[in-house]
């Protein structure tokens, strides 16, 4: 007689399927490594939409020996390759070079998933088979590893790190996830029911899985963008600043004479150009944050290293050189034959220095610059330290000359205009996603991305048993004896239709994907 039933509720957090869907759209591959048993893991997979009914096939690898695992992996690859109708038959050898595999498996048609057990994983992670396993797994859209020990979790992460040029992020909430979190490039701990071991070992921690999408798509993306812009800007300003001395060398007998006042050089990086660069590195946003979440495709430049690579570096160096050429040669051309408006000397070294220093196009907070300039060139400081403050009288004498201001204006405009022109042309001819988004910010918000996340009114995600499970087995009485009274009482309820539908399903369903669930439940 049925005394009772126990059920364990392990709710999915709110927003998990939406997060996974969004991150998949952002070209992030998601693998599940869990210590749960296979059925639980598969149910969770269906529940959070990693596995779907539309998938072409879900491969289950549960071999107990090396040969069995190899065979199962080989079969999985065959099926994936066959779907592409690759005509040329090529025999599978024991050891396959990674390049051949990658080229074939990268473009499989259809969606596949791989579910692998812990004991099979132990064989698959052996040195001679790990590459094969990795390629097969990477060809699948979703990978679920169940019954995985903490060490194996770390080993899987290590495997991906070693062979794939990819950045790995491991997110977990329990003590058994700590090794995985520490192995991955980025470790995220979820503080919650299972304690804080994961949090203590992680780089980032938050309380809900759904915050991962904001972490990656907003904070992470902007962090990458800002870092790249900051680096480019930093190299540019220092290159331009220093190359001016290179050009001046040709005209000062290569005697290493500086073009600028010594105090300008000292304060250049610390005071004059620090604030704008820092402000850009901390506050810059290319699209508003809502757009970042709505369009996960914006995440791609970071993954492909598009914003700071060798090419971008050389572009910013070239810009620095171009700026330095203008910054030196325009004042040079003017000062070659210049005099002040009262006839006295204008083309002296100190005036040249002040002119070139003031020409820095919008790289410095002007008020700070002029305040310091006039202070350094003041009489008071000269009286105190004549040998340290030699530029006395320069600020007011040089900056009162219209020629100097015309030179500065010309230099500024010629430095800035080409950049503006390039940006405009690039916007017109080859706009990238963020440019298009900024341009269309008045258009309707609801785009197809939103439809993916069915922000359900459900407050929690239950992992429904996707297969029939053991209900029928129990009810059949094979495991326990049921009195007919209890059975009749049970069937009197509306759930009789449930059993009928189950029976129908069992006869209708095709070959069950799992091979082992028909074993009687033990323990």
């Amino acid at each position, binding site marked *: 007689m049925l005394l009772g039933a126990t059920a364990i509720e392990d709710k999915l957090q709110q927003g998990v399927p939406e997060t996974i869907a969004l991150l998949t759209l952002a070209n992030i591959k998601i693998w599940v490594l869990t210590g749960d048993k296979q059925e639980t893991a598969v149910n969770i997979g269906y529940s959070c939409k990693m596995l779907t009914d539309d998938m072409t096939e879900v491969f289950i690898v549960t071999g107990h020996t090396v040969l069995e695992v190899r065979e199962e992996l080989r079969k999985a690859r065959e099926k994936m390759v066959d779907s592409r109708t690759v005509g040329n038959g090529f025999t599978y050898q024991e050891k396959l070079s990674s390049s051949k595999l990658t080229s074939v498996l990268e473009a499989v048609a259809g969606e596949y998933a791989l579910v692998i057990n812990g004991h099979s994983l132990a064989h698959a992670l052996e040195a001679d088979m790990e590459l094969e396993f990795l390629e097969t797994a990477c060809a699948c859209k979703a990978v679920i590893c169940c019954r995985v020990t903490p060490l194996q979790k770390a080993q899987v992460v290590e495997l991906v790190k070693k062979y794939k040029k990819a950045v790995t992020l491991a997110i977990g909430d329990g003590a058994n996830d700590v090794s995985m979190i520490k192995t991955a490039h980025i470790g995220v701990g979820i503080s919650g029911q299972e304690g804080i071991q994961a949090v203590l070992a992680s780089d980032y921690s938050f309380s809900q899985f759904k915050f991962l999408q904001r972490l990656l798509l907003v904070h992470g993306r902007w962090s990458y963008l800002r870092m790249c812009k900051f680096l480019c800007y930093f190299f540019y300003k220092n290159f331009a600043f220093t190359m001016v001395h290179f050009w001046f060398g040709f005209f*000062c007998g290569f*005697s290493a004479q500086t073009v600028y006042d010594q105090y300008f050089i000292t304060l250049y990086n610390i005071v004059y150009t620090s604030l704008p660069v820092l402000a850009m590195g901390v506050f810059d946003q290319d*699209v508003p944050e809502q757009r970042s979440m709505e369009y996960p495709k914006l995440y791609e430049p970071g993954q492909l290293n598009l914003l700071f690579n060798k090419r971008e570096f050389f572009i910013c160096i070239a810009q620095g050189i171009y700026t330095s050429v203008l910054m030196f040669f325009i004042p040079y051309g003017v000062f*070659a*034959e210049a005099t002040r408006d009262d006839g006295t000397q204008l083309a002296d070294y100190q005036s040249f220095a002040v002119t070139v220093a003031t020409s820095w196009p919008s790289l410095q907070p002007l008020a700070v610059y002029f305040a310091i300039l006039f202070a350094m060139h003041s009489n008071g400081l000269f009286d105190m330290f004549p040998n340290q403050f030699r530029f006395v009288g320069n600020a007011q004498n040089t900056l009162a000359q219209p020629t100097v201001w015309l030179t500065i204006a010309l230099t500024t405009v010629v430095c800035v*205009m080409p950049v503006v022109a390039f940006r*405009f042309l690039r916007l017109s001819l080859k706009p990238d996603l963020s440019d298009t988004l900024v341009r269309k910010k008045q*258009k309707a918000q609801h785009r197809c991305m939103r439809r993916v996340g069915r922000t359900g009114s459900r407050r929690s995600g239950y992992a429904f048993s996707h297969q029939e499970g053991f209900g029928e087995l129990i009810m059949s009485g094979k495991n326990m004896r049921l009195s007919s009274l209890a059975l009749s009482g049970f069937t009197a309820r509306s759930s009789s239709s449930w059993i009928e539908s189950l029976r129908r399903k069992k006869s209708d369903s095709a070959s069950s994907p799992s091979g082992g669930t028909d074993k009687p439940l033990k323990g």
Partner: protein
Amino acid sequence: MTWSATARGAHQPDNTAFTQQRLPAWQPLLSASITLPLFFCAGLAFIGLGLGLYYSSNGIVELEHDYTGDAGSSNCSVCAAEGQGRAPPPPCSCAWYFSLHELFPGPVYLYYELSSFYQNNRRYGVSRDDAQLSGLPSALRQPANECAPYQRSATGLPIAPCGAIANSLFNDTFSLWHQHQPAGPYVEVPLDRAAIAWWTDYHVKFRNPPLVNGSLALAFRGTAPPPNWPRPVYELSADPNNTGFVNQDFVVWMRTAALPTFRKLYARIRQGDYSAGLPRGAYRVNISYNYPVRAFGGHKLLIFSNISWMGGKNPFLGIAYLVVGALCILVGFAMLVVYIRYQDQTDDDDDDE
């Protein structure tokens, strides 16, 4: 260990707009309606400015003469030949004759120009002691180490003013003579040698040490002039207001030039009959040729020029503005073409989505 709500609060990051990336931002849009007018306006403004500058510069009259004395080029080749290889070169005078067919509008400025003279050399540029030049008595007899080897004289006396810049003071002198009528007498044209340096220079930066018993010579007692100088610093000029460290020529020379070819003001011509300019007639410039430049391939020039609001003759700025303005307009047109061609394409894309 359970994770209580209160313990969590202690570690929670701030929920401010700054830490949670919720700051409002403005994304500047380089749209055509902003960029194209900007380019065209800037281009037109620059072209206008360039034309004004160019014509202003063209209106300036300039007359120059190279008196270095290369063989056959001028009267001063005799002096140059005499001075070859002798240091110091022997005193020599030569003259430059020229005539003006029309009035040289004034006020007229007389410059000397040197070429291939690297006053911007680093070692040369630091070879001075500004504390000494500012008249501090303590620094007068302790010249700075940067002045070496012009720090102390052969007899061990401190050099005032010390340093290579002071030592290489330009010492050619000029006088201008005007012949009203052909075959008539030459009348000297008064050259105004006052205020040829920056006001801040000869009032703040350069000051004589305090007079001793009313005498500047006594103030400089115990110091020696630089090796190349024929006379000590307090005898640079007969005018007591223009001698010592505040001598105008000295101050002008000490303001080192930025480039190897530079000109420095020598005198203004604006007194008496010549305040409106130099009238037509024949002129002679008497040059006392002292300064040796041929050893390093340099040249000495004498220049008469007048001045406008933007200084002397300087066509570079006008031409630069014209070029940049033209480029702006050209690029503006190119961008307009691109915009018109690709705008239709972008509009179609927008409608399709």
